[in-house]
């Protein structure tokens, strides 16, 4: 008998591994200065670019490998933040000057 739930879990796990592999490759390429498509790398990392206007997408297509690497690091930091902090996210501004 097929275990549907097990197949689903396995497929999810494989997709996650594939995603991580892509992210690692993107960061490695960006750090080596061999960036491929910056826009695709940002999208794979989970940046919500789909609703942005064409002028901004063009800015991201022209990112240097150094910029892509920094943005991917920042996305990783964002994804690692504790979820409970989201509740207060709009409170303070940046508190810089």
């Amino acid at each position, binding site marked *: 008998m097929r275990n549907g739930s097990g197949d689903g879990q396995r497929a999810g796990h494989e997709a996650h591994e594939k995603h991580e592999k892509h992210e690692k490759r993107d960061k490695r390429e960006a750090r080596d200065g061999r960036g491929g498509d910056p826009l695709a790398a*940002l999208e794979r990392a989970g*940046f919500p670019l789909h609703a*942005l206007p064409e*002028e*901004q997408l*063009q*800015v*991201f297509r022209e*990112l*240097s490998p*150094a*910029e892509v690497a*920094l*943005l991917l*690091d*920042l*996305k990783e*930091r*964002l994804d690692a*933040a*504790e979820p409970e*902090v*989201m509740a*207060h*996210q*709009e*409170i*303070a*501004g*940046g*508190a*810089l*000057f």
Partner: protein
Amino acid sequence: MTDTGTGAGPGTAAPGPASAALRAKLALAEPVLHRATARLWRPGAGLTARYTRYLGAMYHVIRASVPLMELAALRCAALAADPVAAPLARYLHHHIDEERGHDDWLLADAAAAGADPGGIAGDTPPAAVARLVGAQYYWIEYHHPVTLLGYIAVLEGNAPAPWLAGRLARETGLPDAAFGTVRRHADLDGGHRDDLDRLLDRLPLTVRQRTAVAVSALHTVDAVAELFRQLAAAGARPAPAAIH
């Protein structure tokens, strides 16, 4: 200087408004900063200690603002052939006058919060502050002073919310005098960021210089987020010796 912006490819003039491109890049990065700030100002136990630590850390950051700009202006003076140098130096000299003395505001706030200003000034600045500010010294000295604009864009583009000072005063019970810097910058820095946008769009930046500004800005977001993360985590530990 390693790049005067001459030659083909990355040295050629960059198309489109530089300020819009920088804002687009920062829009992707700044949620990290907002989240770190939200964690720093989370209500509850430790907020007073976190705020006092924040004042101390920001003192060490802001005391370097004028010296950084003076160094960048000095480097501009040595780059006479670079068309970016003269207008950049003019902006920096003007901005130096606007920023002078703000580190003293922070020490005054810290004193009003019950901390020892002499203790704060004498403390070894946190490594996270050195990572934030020190990168600018490196880029100004060994690359190009225009990189400082990325740092300024992040600091002045992320002013405290206008009501943050009031909320912190209510929740910490500290006197109003402990929030002067946060309150004043909520009013000041919007105009400063607009000035910077106008400068970025006026400067004849090459592709390489525009990238340098963005790399500096993105690094600044990352370094500030790390500094705030450490300050937020430290709030759970006993208050520093500088606090009475």
